[in-house]
């Protein structure tokens, strides 16, 4: 696999990662692991009471999934900023594609435009990842975030 440091502006991190269709078990597992038991994510009746056609994925489930595009590169650096705007709902059986494209690059960090889209190519979330190439062992470099 190529190094993240060799990516140029306009390059994608990889070919889009397409997740398997969303299942109820995916959302039950995420509810358990994250502690977010809002029932609109798992129970149809509760989703309908909230005016939804059915259960919807936790926004954080999709955001968590998108970050894994960067996991293979964690020996080169780490995610310094991860900023997301949730744009649309994700329903059961949706097929979500995850994408990251280099938007800016310096010797210290690489910025990516990130987006998750559904099977109709409608963005469900969009945002920015700044990947730091600095050595994080140097903790004397603590700064105000």
């Amino acid at each position: 696999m190529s190094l993240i440091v060799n990516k140029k502006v306009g390059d994608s991190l990889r070919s889009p990662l397409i997740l398997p269709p969303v299942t109820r078990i995916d959302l039950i597992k995420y509810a358990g692991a994250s502690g977010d038991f809002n029932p609109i994510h798992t129970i149809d009746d509760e989703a309908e009471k909230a005016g939804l056609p059915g259960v919807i994925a936790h926004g954080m489930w999709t955001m968590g999934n998108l970050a894994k595009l960067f996991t293979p590169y964690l020996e080169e650096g780490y995610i310094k900023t991860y900023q997301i705007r949730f744009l649309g709902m994700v329903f059961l059986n949706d097929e979500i594609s995850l994408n990251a494209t280099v938007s800016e690059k310096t010797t210290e960090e690489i910025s990516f435009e990130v987006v998750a889209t559904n099977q109709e190519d409608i963005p469900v979330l969009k945002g920015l990842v700044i990947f730091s190439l600095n050595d994080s062992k140097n903790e004397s470099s603590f700064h105000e975030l």
Partner: protein
Amino acid sequence: MFVNIIRKRSNKVLNVVERGAVRSFVNAIDDVHPIYIDEEVGRRSRYGQNICPPTFPCIFDYGDFSDVHLPNIGLIHGEQTYHYNRPIRIGESIYCWKEVKGYKEKSGKSGTMGFLTIEEIGEDKESNKIFRAEKVIIITESVRRELIK
């Protein structure tokens, strides 16, 4: 509404980053990479220890605002940001709290919506900031009416 709660802070809460919690979290987002779960890989990595994925702090306890009560139903998560000084390591102790950063209302065709911004902080024992998160919660007209009652 909510204007009087801006700047309100929660109590600080100690969170210990548990290996099992990280394993179950990376399982749930299908991101089961050795850097998160394999001890030997963690030890040999540039971090000297297994680390956590960037959205993991959503499981932490950030304490409570003493007199701010939000329903946990009917709110919409609008935006979420994480800023890191370094990744979070498994096993470390993190002190977390949150603060109400702002509230504004916007009127549109579906009524007046509220936008509540909450900041969440995690720091180490020496009070060095490890991460800062910010979330925007959208409060719809119908939920807002319930809250005003």
